[in-house]
């Protein structure tokens, strides 16, 4: 049986990759994908703990996260399309109007 720490380490690695990608990449789509990556890294830790403690609540939580992620993807993609239509770019560094 795979020990718990392996799952957690994998989750942490995936999460760190997500954060790094979020900070480094400029393309909105890529940033979006890195958000999904972070969410799923968290999901992995949830199920790992659920399995380890034999409790079902972790599994249930994952479903919630998935639902929220789906909703977020729908809204987010719509925003991205709207942004692209007006700005004709997907580079976040060029979408910085909201400032003083």
């Amino acid at each position, binding site marked *: 049986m795979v020990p718990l720490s392996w799952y957690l380490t994998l989750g942490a690695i995936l999460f760190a990759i997500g954060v790094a990608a979020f*900070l480094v990449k400029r393309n909105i789509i890529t940033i979006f994908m890195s958000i999904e990556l972070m969410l799923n890294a968290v999901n992995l830790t949830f199920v790992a703990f659920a399995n380890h403690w034999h409790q079902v609540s972790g599994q249930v939580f994952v479903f919630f996260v998935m639902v929220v992620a789906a909703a977020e993807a729908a809204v987010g993609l719509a925003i991205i399309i709207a942004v692209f239509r007006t700005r004709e770019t997907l580079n976040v560094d060029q979408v910085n109007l909201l400032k003083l």
Partner: protein
Amino acid sequence: MNPSPNFNLWLIPILPLIGSAINGIFGKRFARSLVATVALVFSGAAFGYALWVTAQFSSLPQASIPHIERLFVWIQAGNFSVDYGFYLDQLSLVMLLVVTGVGFVIHIYSVGYMAEEGGYYRFFSYLNLFLFFMLTLVLAHSYLLMFVGWEGVGLASYLLIGFFFLKQSAAQAGKKAFITNRVGDFAFLLGMFLLIRQFGTLDYDKVFRGIAPMPVEHSLGFLTITALLMMFGACGKSAQIPLYVWLPDAMEGPTPVSALIHAATMVTAGVYMIARSNSLFMHAPIAMGVVAVIGALTAIFAASIGLVQNDIKRVLAYSTVSQLGYMFLACGVAAFSAGIFHLMTHAFFKALLFLAAGSVIHGLGGEQDMRHMGGLRKLIPWTFWTMTVATFAISGFPPLSGFFSKDEILWKAFSDAQHGSWILWLVGLITAGMTSFYMFRLWFMTFFGERRQPLHDAHQEPTGAVHAPGAAPADVGHQSGVAHSTAAPGHSAHGGGHVHESPWIMLGPLVVLAIGAFVMGWVGIPQALGGHNNFDQFLSPVFHTSSEPARAVENFPAEPQKTENAGEERGLELTLAGTSVGVAVLGFLLAWQFYYRRPELPQRIAASMSGAYRTLINKYWVDEAYYAALINPIVDGSRTVLWRGVDVGVIDALVNGAGTTSKEASGVTRRMQSGSIRSYAGWVALGAACVVAFMIYAGTR
């Protein structure tokens, strides 16, 4: 609580208040006649009700006087409580009749006088409001409720002095009156605080009962200090030295207002208050002395200023101050009933003088300068004859009312063993001579000789541009309506008898008051002249009950002598009365000589005594002195210290400093909001990393 019948005294003040409210709220849409009707109905109803109460009062048993009606508990704080109640005794009954009677008559007069003026409903609303507060003052059963009326009449006075509020001088005069009164009110308040501290109540009956057993105080103790503070408050309201300065300026108001408020009723409130507090004052001889001295000084001081004034209303204003000084003098020599007697007769003849002067001003289309009058005797005969009655009354010619009341005061000032002195009498006598002189000066200048034209008429200038600066405000003041509409034709026609007698609605009140000024003195004819001094006896329960013990001790050794000296004393009183009549005649003859036979004489005398004349015409520079000593330092201090120093330097600096600081701080921090998503994400990641680091640190500990 009280076995005597219920008179519903609260109705008396409330009636004018209703009239005031109706006119004040709806009057703008009413026709003038309706406004006048409302005002007259409600003030007349108050007068009628007061008469009914008088009739009932006379059938009250002696034991139930003072008659007190408590309505409800007004203020309750700890064990201190004040009821809302009314107090009726002989003193307040006299005041009640004077206020409602003279007030009603002046209301009638105002209907005619104000007919051409703007703000008709406003005027009558204020006038009724004044009656409400004055009646509250008079009928109050505690010092606190009296203070409510006291402040209220001050408010009404302010509103009515500044009635022509578009005129700068009127607005200033209103402010001056109000602020000067506040100075006195402050002392009155302090006096009330002392009473509360000592007796825990402000109800008249309880306070007087508390004072009665206390010993007469010959040092600066509680009673003397309280009495002095009360007296200072009275000085403000009754225009005595040092707070008299507002009254002459109050003549900016319409003439009926001058008659009602600044001659007959409101200014006598101070005298009423001192008379009401007689048991307090009788226990504080030092305060009594101060009252007498202030009264005598004010009397002679104001009379001397009145000698040279040229504005007809200002002469009367200084005369009022002077006569109020007489009333103070009377109170100061323990002749309270004489003071109230003079108050009553003065209310009649001074109101009459003002109303007649108003009729003259009305007839001349707003002229107030006596130098521009003269020869009006034939043109306005009714005004002339009523004015004549009043002039002779105030000058102290028997058998008119002023003679009896003034003589009573002078006699008491001379004869009262404890408080009187021949110096006070002499000052009063000289004042009487001056009074006679300036009143007949006014009389001769206004009604006799040739009509003297204002300067600009002689030049046939159609505009008012050549108005002497001094005369201009007087003209503009009175006449917002008449003069402006008729100015151009009126000026050229003035020489040819354009002067018109006032309408009957104005002359009727004059006649009524003239009868009053003639006969009102007969209620108090002294025994020396074969009368019974009914007025004094009527008021004696108010003024002697409280002071009876002190008086009895004082008079006990003198009692046997009194009977054998009665004849001698009577002779003395008659001599003094004769002296004062002689002085009045002397004043008359001097005025006749100066202003009728040889009108050029006054100018020569004024030129030869220019120092004295300038002092008088500038009113002893008291206003200037007040400006230099009080007003300018306060204004300058406010400007430099309070405005530029505290307000700008501290308060504004704090507020502006807070604004600037936060603006600068946010100028730094706002750079965080770059608009770049990645920098935000970086901040979030950094924050999350910090939290995680802290959790790990906390977990490992």
